[in-house]
């Protein structure tokens, strides 16, 4: 063994030669093979892997779309329809990309709710959580700019409404909007830069996802009980236990995805986006894509423009502070009977906001939207901080193994299942 070479355990001579010089095989084995993972995940822990797969699908389909797309106001709409009609399997690639955006948000919303319910944001995983919020913000920007590219009516008017939000900033607002547009209205320069950024940001997301996963592999995963693994009896090696469990989730996810793409590809879109953009004709109701509706509802809940914009951005920025707003020592809401109820109310307020965001800005939707917005913020700023001090949580189990195997098995020193005891230790 020459000095300076990595002490590789790989048997295959070619892989071994590589692994001695660049220990990627050892790294993968450590991070995805033997990586000790809590043994009690439920299927909600699939959604991180699903989000990763979704990102890859979006980048792969997007690259092929970009080969056939023309970012010019005069040609963009027709070039998209050309993809649908004349490019081999262009309709498939575009419908996968289009519905892939919706699937991405479904998956990521569930991933976020899961993190909130099981307290995955609490120490020591604060930075992991905050990187996740950064990914979500980047996703929103990417999705917004992607929706502009087909240059339909909703593309144009959505872009006009959203970029105009920045004009609410005092003093420099108007200048910022002109700077964003590259002109005095949403026009060809806007479309060009949005195309460029829409291609760039997914790779930025990829980078932050890498940091997200790197941080995850320092602290290890949270789990439905919200208590840390205390030893090998509490964990399983990631492979094969969670590779196969994730595979089951991936197939279910692909089935839903395929159903959308092949049988109702336009159901989640707006018909107006099949009308070419026309700056002289404003649609009756300008609505964003469904996944932005809750935030759109919060924006419209305040009669004041600047106030609405601040509240809308604040509704996501407040997630950054979540690890410190939640004062409870207990992570999982399984053991927080009161917080659990308020949390489900919060999810309902989010769904109500989604519904209200798609309705015209008139009564009773405005009032319902204001109510839901008030609860949305009250949960973060009042209920969570106060409840953590007042609530009496249920008794926590001694350990994951104790909860999973029954207290007797562990207390009585009963046999620990082989897979749990032997496999992770051999390789770790």
């Amino acid at each position, binding site marked *: 063994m020459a000095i300076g070479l990595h002490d590789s355990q790989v048997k295959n001579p070619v892989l071994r030669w590589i692994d001695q010089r660049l220990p990627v095989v050892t790294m993968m084995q450590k991070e995805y093979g033997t990586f000790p993972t809590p*043994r*009690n995940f439920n299927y909600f822990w699939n959604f991180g892997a699903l989000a990763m797969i979704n990102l890859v699908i979006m980048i792969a389909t997007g690259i092929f779309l970009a080969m056939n797309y023309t970012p010019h106001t005069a040609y963009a709409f*027709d070039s998209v*329809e*050309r993809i*649908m*009609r004349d490019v081999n399997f262009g*309709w*498939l690639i575009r*419908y996968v990309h289009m519905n892939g955006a919706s699937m991405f948000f479904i998956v990521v919303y569930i991933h976020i709710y899961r993190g909130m319910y099981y307290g995955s944001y609490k120490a020591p995983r604060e930075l992991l959580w905050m990187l996740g919020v950064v990914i979500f913000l980047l996703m929103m920007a990417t999705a917004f700019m992607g929706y502009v590219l087909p240059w339909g009516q909703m593309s144009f008017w959505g872009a006009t409404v959203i970029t105009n939000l920045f004009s609410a900033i005092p003093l420099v607002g108007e200048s910022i909007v002109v700077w964003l547009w590259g002109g005095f209205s949403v026009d060809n320069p806007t479309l060009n830069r949005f195309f460029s950024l829409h291609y760039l940001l997914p790779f930025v997301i990829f980078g932050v996802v890498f940091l997200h996963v790197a941080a995850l592999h320092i602290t290890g995963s949270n789990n439905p009980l919200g208590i840390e693994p205390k030893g090998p009896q509490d964990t*399983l090696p990631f492979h*094969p*236990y969670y590779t*196969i*469990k994730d*595979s*089951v989730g*991936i*197939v*279910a996810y*692909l*089935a839903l995805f*395929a*159903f959308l*793409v*092949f*049988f109702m*590809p*336009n159901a989640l879109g707006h*018909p*107006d986006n*099949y*009308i070419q953009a026309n700056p002289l004709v404003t649609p*009756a109701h300008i609505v964003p894509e469904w996944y932005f509706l809750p935030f759109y509802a919060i924006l419209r809940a305040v009669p004041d423009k600047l106030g609405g914009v601040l509240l809308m951005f604040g509704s996501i920025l407040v997630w950054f502070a979540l690890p410190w707003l939640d004062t409870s020592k207990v992570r999982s809401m399984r053991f927080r009977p009161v917080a659990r109820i308020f949390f489900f109310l919060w999810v309902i307020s989010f769904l109500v906001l989604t519904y209200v965001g798609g309705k015209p800005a008139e009564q009773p939707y405005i009032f319902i939207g204001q109510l839901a917005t008030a609860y949305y913020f009250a949960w973060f700023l009042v209920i969570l901080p106060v409840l953590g001090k007042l609530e009496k949580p249920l008794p926590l189990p001694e350990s994951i193994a104790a909860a*999973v*195997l029954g207290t007797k098995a562990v207390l009585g020193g009963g046999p620990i*299942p*082989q*897979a*749990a005891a032997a496999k992770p230790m051999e390789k770790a």
Partner: protein
Amino acid sequence: MRVLKALALAASVFAATPALAAGEAPKAPNAGFSFNSLLGTFDRGAQQRGFQVYKEVCSACHGMRLLSYRNLLDIGLSEAEVRAIAASFQVTDGPNDEGAMFERPARLSDRFRSPFPNDQAARAGNNGALPPDLSVITKARHDGANYLRALLIGYRDAPAGFNVPDGMHYNEYFPGHLIAMPNVLNDGQVEFADGTRATVDQMARDVTTFLAWAAEPETERRRQMGVKILVFLAILGGLAYATKRKVWADVKH
């Protein structure tokens, strides 16, 4: 027909109620199109008749610029028929070696010729209104096919007190009820080669079928592929789940 009349009557009652604000229209009745179901296909006869209605009636004002003549091969017309259809249109080509533009009969590869050279000409020829391009029209309206067919049979006399300005027409299903397009379908308007009687409803259904296909020509292929993929995923899912059970069999969790 009686059902349709009943529906139209019901719709007109709804339309007359003041609860319906301007800009709204009654929901289009479900026309039961074969292609609107999950695994549905297009009726080739209806597509061909629909193309005839488009060609002889609609195309006087509405273009379909995203379609090429060769696309008509997909609705069951022979190559000779499609070549003849294309050749009946003159398109502008060029410039030639002398630098001049010239007219020639259209080929399979040419896009459908639009009736007007630009939007301004279209407006000038239509009392200021712009007839929309119909290439993706059923995708561009909510419940597109049902809406379109309802619109085509939805011309009525305006209810008493409803002011219809010159050049506008009252339509049950158009948002706001005032549409610039006049009623263009009358019984016997076209003569179908297959002997189908050209009633207004028949023509409306057929042209809607044609336009729905034109908006999403991949529909049939998409659905066939979707069935195969879902069957594949069902089997794969079963195998994945069985493997998962086996891997986890000796682990309590």
